[in-house]
Every structure is written in structure tokens, then in C-alpha cells.
């Protein structure tokens, strides 16, 4: 029995394209080994950066390319690297965020299982750009196979001299630690992650200070997502101008989108940013349409923390600006599809349960508010809703939004608010009739 994810990808399409690049070798069963990775041009970018470029040039190249963080917030990567204070005597740290726990999101796992050296190479380049000699990857503890795969890859990278002392004779030393988590979504939030890496409870920190100034062990630290870092070697190899020519002007490049829920072909697909959401769901190359040829009810376009879209909104492009314009977000790029049989109250109960369970408890609006919301929504879902409950939910949401230490509070609230905005009649029906307007009963095969 293999525990390697059987997830579907568009590797073939990527291999035939000179624009898409992240998934080129992701279906090659040997790609996880250093020998195959090298044979496919791996570690050339790392060698180029280390032996022919200055750290500032590396950061500038990534900045010019316009790469934006793929972990959810979309912050420009090169600019973030530039926040590391120059001349600080403290050690600098680079931490790769592989906590991947946002419902709907399952892309970083595939990179780690099938192409782990891409992540390691990107981390090394990032480390060099900020003057770091000890870097970490924080992988969620449940990820058995990705952890095994990354550990093997790190060992091989040391053996081949891509990591360790005096790399490629440059005099530069770089070590890497694989750190595994303990099962907490909040540890994906960068400051909670740093606390966790320090051996503390994974609770978010109040900012400022930002991690780039005082992060891990109170030293300048950069946290980047797996996919962000895995993109970096391509930018170094092919240049910022090439990268900028992909995708959209303000959202350059390509990105992996996890497609889940009621589609015929769920999977992980690399698309240029700006690709039509509708095409993504219906094109036989990707989603292939709605499961059972049912009607579409709604879509969450960027992971469970992002607002819903209705079928009339899905002509939108999958990029940062276009999704913001229609009131949602690109987030982690996890597209979750709901068919007409989905009761919206039932779906929101699943989501709020998650946020209540994962709240780190540090601030009151989030800790208490998510608890109230779960109680209220559960009551409605079980047919015990009372008149005024929808308004009560809205008021609790309003008291959480923008009043918390980290974005988890907002993340819990945004899908609820958008669902009430889009399907208020359905919420009300549930309260008035004590049951769903639609029949939600999904059987596994």
C-alpha cells in the first residue's frame, strides 16, 4: 500500500507548456529523488544564485518578478525579504510554512511528496537572499508521507553538497531542520507558527514587532509558504521578465489550485493567474463539471476563509484583484464547489465548528464569538432556531470582524456573512420551518 496522494494533476498539460512550470515533473515517480531532480535541471538556480549573484540581486529579481505569497495573504515576496534589517548582528532565519490546514487546501502536500527538492532549493535561495544560515520547514504533524519525503530529500541534498558547509565552494554554510507540528490550524498563522517552533503553545503574537524584525528566537525571520518558495528557482533560472509575462499584470505567474467538493474531477491543477473560474470548474481538462450533472449552488474560491460566490459570479478570473473586486479573495487558491443539494446552514455549521475548534483562545472576540456562532448555527441546523437568530449571528460577526489579534477571527466570520448576504431566505426558511429548504445527504460510494 502506498500512502502517496493519488490526487489528480494537470502535469501533462504543464509539461507541454513553456509557461506553466511548477507541476512539470509532478507525475514522474522518481522526481522526489535528488538524482532525477538534478537531471531535470534542479539545483541549477541555487548554484547560480550562490556563485554568481549578490543576495540583494536575488531579492530584487524576485521582487521584479512580482511573485506574491501563496500562503493566503498574497504579500509580495521580494519586498518581504527586503524588510530584514541590514547589518543586524543577530542570526537571520527563514521558515517555510508547510502547515497546510485550511479546509480545501491540499497543494503544498503534493509538492512535498512528489517534488520536495523544489521546496528545498527555493528555501536555500531565499535563505541566501536574507543572509540566513539555518532554515526550517514547519510541516503539520499529520502529514506522514510528506514528512518522510522531505526528510529523505534533505538527507540527499546534504549528501550532494546542496546543503551543509561551504556549499559549491562558495564559503556559504546552510543548515536545514525539518520540524513537525502537533495538529493545530492556527500554527499556519506565521506568528503562532514561530511560537510553536520555539516549543510554546501555538498562539498568535501581537504585531508589531513583525517577524522580519523580531521573529524566531527574537531574531529577524522570514516566513514563506511552500509553493511560494518552490516558485523561486524558476524565477532565478528564467528571469523576472519571463515570470512577469505569465498571468496578469498585478497577479503575475502561475499557481496551484486545489479543486474539491462537487466536481467530477477534483484535483490539484496549475493555472496561470487570471484563469476563468468557470472554465476551471467545467473544462474537461480540470473539474469537468458538477458531480452528477447537478446545478451549481455556490463556490468558495480561495479556501474556507474566503467569501462565497454564486453561479452568476463565476466568470471571474482566478487572481488577487479580480476576486477582490467581486467581494471574495484568492486566499490559498482552494476552490470548493457546492451543488444544488447543499444546505447552506449545514455547510456553515461544518465551517464554524472548524474555526471554533481551531481558535487559539488568546483574544475574547474570537474565542467566545466562534463558540456563540457555533451554538446559534447548530441550533438552526437542528431545527431549534428562533426568530431573530440570523440578526443575532450578524451582530456577533460584527463584533469579531477587525477586532482580533490575528486574521483567524475574520476568517471565521467572512464565509458566514457572505452566506447570509447571498442566501438569507434559506437561513430564514431553516428557522421558520425547522428544516432545510434542500435535502443535504451526501453518501460516500
Amino acid at each position, binding site marked *: 500500500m502506498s500512502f502517496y496522494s493519488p490526487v489528480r494533476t494537470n502535469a501533462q498539460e504543464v509539461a507541454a507548456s513553456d509557461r506553466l512550470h511548477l507541476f512539470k515533473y509532478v507525475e514522474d515517480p522518481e522526481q522526489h529523488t535528488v538524482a532525477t531532480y538534478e537531471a531535470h535541471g534542479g539545483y541549477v538556480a541555487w548554484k547560480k544564485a550562490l556563485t554568481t549573484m549578490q543576495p540583494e540581486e536575488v531579492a530584487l529579481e524576485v521582487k521584479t518578478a512580482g511573485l506574491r505569497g501563496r500562503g493566503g495573504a498574497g504579500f509580495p515576496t521580494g519586498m518581504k525579504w527586503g524588510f530584514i534589517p541590514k547589518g543586524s548582528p543577530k542570526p537571520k532565519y527563514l521558515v517555510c510554512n508547510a502547515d497546510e490546514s485550511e479546509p*480545501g487546501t491540499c497543494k503544498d502536500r503534493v509538492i512535498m511528496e512528489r517534488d520536495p527538492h523544489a521546496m528545498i532549493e527555493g528555501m536555500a535561495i531565499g535563505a541566501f537572499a536574507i543572509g540566513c544560515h539555518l532554515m526550517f520547514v514547519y510541516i503539520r504533524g499529520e502529514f506522514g508521507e510528506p514528512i518522510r519525503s522531505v526528510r529523505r530529500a534533505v538527507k540527499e541534498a546534504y549528501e550532494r553538497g546542496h546543503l551543509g558547509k561551504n556549499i559549491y565552494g562558495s564559503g556559504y554554510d546552510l543548515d536545514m531542520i525539518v520540524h513537525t507540528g*502537533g495538529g493545530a490550524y492556527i500554527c499556519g498563522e506565521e506568528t503562532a507558527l514561530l511560537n510553536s517552533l520555539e*516549543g510554546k503553545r*501555538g498562539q498568535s503574537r501581537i504585531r508589531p514587532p513583525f517577524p522580519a524584525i523580531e521573529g524566531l528566537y527574537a531574531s529577524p525571520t522570514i516566513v514563506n509558504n511552500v509553493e511560494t518558495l518552490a516558485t523561486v528557482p524558476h524565477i532565478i533560472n528564467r528571469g523576472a521578465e519571463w515570470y512577469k509575462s505569465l498571468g496578469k499584470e498585478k497577479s503575475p505567474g502561475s499557481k496551484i489550485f486545489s479543486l*474539491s467538493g462537487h466536481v467530477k474531477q*477534483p484535483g490539484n491543477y496549475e493555472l496561470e493567474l487570471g484563469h476563468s473560474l468557470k472554465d476551471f470548474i467545467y473544462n474537461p481538462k480540470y473539474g469537468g463539471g458538477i458531480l452528477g450533472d447537478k446545478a451549481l449552488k455556490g463556490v468558495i474560491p480561495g479556501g474556507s476563509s474566503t467569501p462565497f460566490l454564486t453561479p452568476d459570479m463565476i466568470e471571474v478570473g482566478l487572481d488577487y484583484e479580480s476576486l477582490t473586486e467581486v467581494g471574495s479573495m484568492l486566499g490559498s487558491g482552494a476552490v470548493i464547489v457546492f451543488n444544488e443539494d447543499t444546505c447552506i446552514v449545514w455547510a456553515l455549521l461544518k465551517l464554524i465548528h472548524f474555526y471554533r475548534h481551531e481558535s487559539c483562545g488568546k483574544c475574547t472576540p474570537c474565542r467566545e464569538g466562534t463558540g456563540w456562532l457555533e451554538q446559534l448555527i447548530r441550533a438552526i441546523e437542528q431545527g431549534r432556531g428562533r426568530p431573530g437568530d440570523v440578526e443575532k449571528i450578524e451582530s456577533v460577526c460584527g463584533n469579531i470582524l477587525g477586532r482580533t489579534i490575528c486574521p483567524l477571527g475574520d476568517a471565521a466570520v467572512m464565509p458566514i456573512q457572505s452566506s447570509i448576504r447571498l442566501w438569507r431566505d434559506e437561513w430564514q426558511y431553516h428557522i421558520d420551518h425547522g428544516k432545510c429548504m434542500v435535502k443535504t445527504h451526501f453518501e*460516500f460510494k
Partner: protein
Amino acid sequence: MMLSEASITLMKEMTARYPEKRSGILPALTIAYEEVGHVNPDIYREIAAAIDVPMVEVAEAATFYTMFPKEPVGTYLIQVCHNISCALMGADSLVEYLEEKLGIKKGDTTPDNLFTLISVECLGSCSTAPMMQINQDFYENLTRAKVDQILEDLREKAKAQA
């Protein structure tokens, strides 16, 4: 002592790599959990002694992280993802099916101590739903036939090891 010499040595080695000892706590808890199957105050004490940190720091961390069971569980800990992408693909019915097959309710352990069944939050396998984790391994794109086979294989494996 609940932890083996080998585990203690590994904890020490892991901890020594970090700039600060406290960072060794999560790796140590993971090693303990993989060896014993759960963690408890006796284990916190052993970890604290092994990596030279205060026991309270180990306990503080351990109680925050849900991945480490605090009480003994069956040989095979079955964790079904009940989150949204899996729920849309029938995760609730998967839990019911397992309850029926194992003759227990969610949260319980079979009388032969072989299986514990719980449901958990998203495990990062949303595009291969529904799914479950058993000990360190993921089982994805589950169907009834696959579940039957997996349980049978694990029963065989347990018998062979007994």
C-alpha cells in the same frame, strides 16, 4: 519508564540541533507519541529530564496540541476528516459506516482494543475526499469496498504481529 533508550537518544539528538532547547519539545512529544501511542504527565517528566527543560513547559505544549492523544487509544487510531470538502463527499456517512462495521460509536475503542474511531478537522486531502488517517498513514478517495479492505488488512496485520 515508558520511553525506550533509543527514543531518549533521538530526542537528545533532535534537540541539540536547535538554537534553543525548548524547540525540542514538539519533536520529543512526537517521538513519545509514536512509541507509546499517547502522552501523559509521566511522559512529560521523562521528556523534561531527557532534553533538560522544565516539565511545565512540556505539559503546556502537550495540552495545546490535539494530535497527541492524552489517554491510551486502540492499536489503530482511525481519524476521519469531517470538514467541508470531505463532508460534501459523504464524510458523515463514512463515519456511520465505520461505526457500523466496528460496532462502536465515534469516540470509542473496540473491545479487542484494536480500533479507536474519531473524527477530526481537515487533513489536507480535500481533493481526494472522503479520507481518513490511520496512525501515520492517509487513506484517500474512500469507498465502502476500500474501507472493508483496509480494515481487513489491518486485522490481518495485527494478528501477524501478535
